[in-house]
């Protein structure tokens, strides 16, 4: 697989480390009433879809940026690659 890095261009997937579902960006509010339930779901439950999947890849052997890669889990086709920093800010995280 080739990941088209937004800053560095096409890079081999072997340069990256895979973490998992990009939903991990959306950390629950620890102050919330049901925080224990929400953190259980956040830490342990996954959608694991067959088809389009947004996921976090870390460019360990490159510029060490985190990326949000949209990839089809049935074909391995990558349709979008964004900096996780930008994606997290868009979702309301401050960094």
């Amino acid at each position: 697989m080739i990941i088209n890095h937004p800053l560095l261009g096409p890079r081999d997937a072997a340069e990256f480390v895979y973490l998992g579902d990009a939903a991990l960006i959306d950390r629950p509010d620890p102050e919330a009433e049901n925080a224990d339930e929400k953190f259980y779901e956040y830490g342990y439950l996954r959608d694991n879809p067959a088809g389009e999947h947004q996921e976090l890849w870390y460019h360990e052997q490159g510029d060490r940026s985190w990326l949000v890669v949209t990839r089809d889990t049935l074909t391995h086709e990558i349709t979008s690659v964004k900096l996780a920093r930008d994606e997290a800010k868009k979702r309301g995280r401050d960094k």
Partner: protein
Amino acid sequence: MTILEKYSYPNPETLKKQHLKGAIMRYSAFEILKQGLSGNKGWKPVWREPEPKAEYDVIIVGGGGHGLSTAYYLSKVFGMRNIAVLEKGWLGSGNIGRNTTIIRSNYMMPGNQPFYEFSLKLWEGLEQDFNYNAMVSQRSILNLFHSDPQRDAFVRRANAMILSGADAELADEAQLRRELPFLDFDNARFPIKGGLYQRRGGTVRHDAVAWGYARGADSRGVDIIQNCEVTGFDIENGVCTGVQSSKGRIRAKKVAVCVAGSSSRVMSLAGMRLPIESHVLQAFVTEGLKPTLPGVITFGAGHFYVSQSDKGGLVFGGDIDGYNTYAQRGNLPVVEDVAEGGMAIMPMIGRARLLRSWGGVMDMSMDGSPFIDKTHIDGLYFNGGWCYGGFKATPASGYCYAHLLANDTPHPVAKEMRLDRFKRGHIIDEKGQGNQPNLH
């Protein structure tokens, strides 16, 4: 007390009496001679191909190794008869046909090890039990170690194995040099200092396991329905009353899902999210060679394991690819990694030509251990999360799942394999990697 007595495996005499009451042929040397002399025209199909009935006591979703062994033990040991196995493709078309056929019970955690030892004991009696040649070959499995701390960890593991009733044996470097002279003992990064043997480990003819269980279940009246995909569950007021399938609605008192590799997809039809990611594991086989490897050899430090099939091919593999996928194929970086592991520990493998490679999709769970449990929906049961170790578990998985379905209580050796264990903090994490499936 042996583990079988402890966990109430039925008396062998009772089993013999129950043995194959149906109309199917019994295989024997005499039968082969008789058929040979009469032109081999008298062989009968190994199982029926029935259409589904309107209702069953138990529907098992998934006709792979675990589903078929569940049906077999439900009908044979737990006395249930009105059972269907629904299989989306053909029988045994999933991971029972895509693995590297290794059996062993060299785990360590108390939630795992007694279960795998129970499974190994069932393997040892399997062929006589279901009268089918599964080519169970206890040719040994060896885990290599390369340092003092690793040896100490293996000694600890060996003790845990022995406590569960399994066998374990530590071999030093001199012994391995005698037994396996072709290994690269003086590898600069991973010099071989010894290994942990389990002599009762080995390999099994994987397809025959599916066929043998299918034949045994079918002969006791289990309907095995192929090309029948489950497309939904009928759930009313928190109770599962049956399934929707490509052959229409089928009612059931209990629905038992057993589709490792596709667990998240199938359970999402019941609105459930699982502590599982799907990953691909690749495997490889070379051209046939003369007998070279006496048993299974694993090089954990370098992500490589190898055995030799009865046809002579070297069967080997390594790590999972490491990203979510449902494609039954992997990518080249892992091929390279596995090849490097092989060359590092067993340089002669470089002379063998690769014949085939393939990938299997597996349920990687959050702690690397499986699930055999009820769900929060009455009448809906779940078996999955086998990671890359489901094949060896086939007999005990089916036996324990059947026990759960028949009695609604977990079998003692599977009582920690619960779906809610992460919520309770009772994880079974052999490698201590935490909740990241691709590290297990």
